[in-house]
């Protein structure tokens, strides 16, 4: 008696969101099966891998990252190089210097940097903010204006600033936004409802459901994403059907396992491989839980994770 297969194909599906323009544009979402279950039904848009660098440049304290960007001095050169990283589907600039609690770079300068990067890249661009709610609201409005026509994804629209960002980015300048909530299905849904009440359709919104590095409360991340996907597909909840993007690098490269110097923990071995493994493990895990895109830093991680995705499709 052969095994009776019962594929889980749902009547509902994840909405499609396209970022970038031309033949390098990428589309996230569209599937009507659980994450990576390509054996249940074909997944037309496999999960995408993005390469992250800061507005101060890539993290050259990590040897493999420094080697990859060697000779790329201006931010434009860095952005161009990032597009050539094998496995990269898009690139992501982090406006770290904009943070008022840090360098507090003026908005005009941030916009100039964004413009420089946008001119240099051949792949779609995802811009991450300063993590400061007030600053991001003003900043993204200007960035959205400056990059009109590039169809970029502006991350970090949160409950407190979504209005300004969403209206400017999507309605005025035709960009896409990332709706960011912190590891809670109800907060995620609430934010999506608020954004939709502004008259913005799901084809303009990608969810950042919040993340953590493997071992750091990752069970909340996994279960939140599992539940979001379950609600979107099995219960046809159209306020949770947006594709999900997870910026993995920031958490993965800041936990002790990745940054503690080898001198402090000789048995742990070189920090770089620990960081790479943490980044890969966390990325593979969020993909399994439902991320349609992950953002990573190290060339080895990008290679491994993009290969994992292509093997599974």
């Amino acid at each position, binding site marked *: 008696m052969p*095994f009776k297969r019962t594929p889980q194909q749902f009547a509902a599906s994840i909405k499609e969101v396209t970022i970038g323009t031309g033949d390098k544009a990428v589309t996230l979402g569209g599937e009507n099966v659980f994450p990576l279950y390509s054996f249940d039904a074909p997944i037309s848009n496999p999960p995408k891998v993005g390469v992250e660098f800061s507005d101060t440049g890539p993290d050259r304290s990590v040897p493999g990252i420094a080697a990859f960007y060697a000779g790329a001095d201006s931010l434009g050169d860095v952005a161009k190089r990032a597009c050539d990283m094998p496995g990269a589907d898009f690139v992501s600039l982090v406006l770290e210097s904009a943070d008022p609690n840090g360098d507090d770079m003026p908005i005009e300068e941030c916009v100039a940097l964004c413009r420089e990067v946008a001119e240099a890249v051949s792949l779609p661009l995802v811009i991450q903010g300063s993590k400061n709610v007030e600053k991001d609201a003003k900043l993204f409005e200007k960035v959205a204006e400056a990059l009109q026509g590039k169809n970029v994804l502006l991350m970090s629209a949160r409950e407190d600033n979504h209005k300004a960002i969403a209206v400017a980015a999507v309605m005025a300048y035709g960009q896409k936004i990332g709706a960011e909530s912190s590891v809670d299905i109800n907060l995620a849904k609430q934010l999506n409802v608020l954004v939709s009440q502004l008259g913005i359709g799901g084809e303009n919104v990608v969810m950042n459901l919040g993340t953590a590095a493997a*071992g750091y409360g990752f069970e909340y991340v996994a279960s939140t994403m599992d539940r979001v996907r379950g609600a979107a597909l099995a219960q046809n909840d159209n306020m949770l059907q947006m594709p999900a993007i997870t910026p993995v690098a920031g958490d993965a490269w800041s936990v002790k396992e990745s940054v503690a110097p080898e001198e402090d923990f000789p048995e742990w071995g070189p920090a770089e491989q620990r960081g790479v493994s943490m980044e890969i493990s966390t990325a593979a895990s969020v993909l399994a839980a439902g991320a349609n895109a992950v953002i990573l830093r190290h060339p080895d991680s990008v290679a*491994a994770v993009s290969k994992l995705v292509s093997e599974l499709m």
Partner: protein
Amino acid sequence: MALKGLDIFKLTPKTNCKECGIPTCMAFAMKVAQGALPIEKCPHMSADALATLGEATAPPMKSVTIGAGDAAYKLGGETVLFRHDKAFISQNLYAVNITPQNADEAIPELLKIDYERISERMYVELINVAYGGDKAAFLETVKKALAAGRTLILEVGDPAAAREALELAKDQKPLLNGANPSNYAEMNALATEFGVVLGLSAPDLDGLYDLTAELEKLGNKNLVLDVGASSIKDAFANAVQIRRAALKDSDRTFGYPSLVNAAKLAPGDLNMQTALASLFTLKYGSIIVMEKMGYAQALPLYGLRQNIYTDPQKPMRVEPGIYPLNGADENALCATTVDFALTYFIVSGEIERSGIPVNLLISDAGGYSVLTAWAAGKLSASSISRFFKETAVDDKIKNRVLIIPGKVAVLKGEIEESLPDWKIVVAPNEAMGIVKFLKDMAS
């Protein structure tokens, strides 16, 4: 098919004798249908009724035990596909594959992975020894692996070689992974004779299904299913479909734990193996075999596994006590937060990033986050002062500055009253602000 409560009720004596501890037979039948009670709790069931019900009320996925004594591990017994539906039960095990060529270096290497993380010992539970055609070399490697004191997986499909390896390892109850459609009768006889769990593999999922059914017909229900190594795509498809068939579609033939050999799926590519091990830790691998497990691989994988197998209803907690960070001594600042593991990790991580020596004082707050603990009355001025007394903080630490979480700034006055010698300082609301806060304080 799962039976409904009414079907079970029809088979009970309907006497409401209460001997099962439940007031009525109807209520008992409902509990059994939910899986809350085993049918055997009723002493008056007829043998016929038990036979009818036994199969139908048996758990959807069997649990099997490999290894012996302290190194015995339970696999399987899962009831849900997603941990938020209830919890995952038997955490997956990690194995390292060793060969005759690398055994002398690989075994000491894998034994180095041995550390504690949130009250759990992290180590490589299993060693996989594969038969490569040279029996003498295989047996020699089995001996070396046995000396390491870990439970073995004997990956061998040659019955003669398997018998000799089992003779060596029988007391440690290894997993015998090697039955396939052409040798299963002999391998089954060996597994039964030595009382070990048998691993099954077949070229495809239909073949594996048939093979499992054959073994069950032979009376062996002590099985592990190898998801195969033909491709990553197939291995993942098989692992998911096996588990889903058992738990969602009530197909008990596939109700067994699974084995994923990441070493074979991505030979020589440890980064890919790390990705695979993570994927299969979330989705349905019961045993995951790696080529190598160094700290770089272990730190994320064991942390991930510990997270995923946490019971959602029982948050992970750290032991209350004084945690000196960044080389803090009795003169260093003190900060306090709750014993919820996630809070502890985030707060201690940020403090470590600041580089400022701090004594982190963790009191018993019921394993809740700061605001939840405060709302539940588990984090209060009295709970903190009680902790100070019980732990004799005043004797152990000379510094008299205590930083409290920003979210419970409201407690400042009360804490000042109950700890009059201490200067109470309120931290930022979010952990993100800790580094700047501590640096400003220190300067």
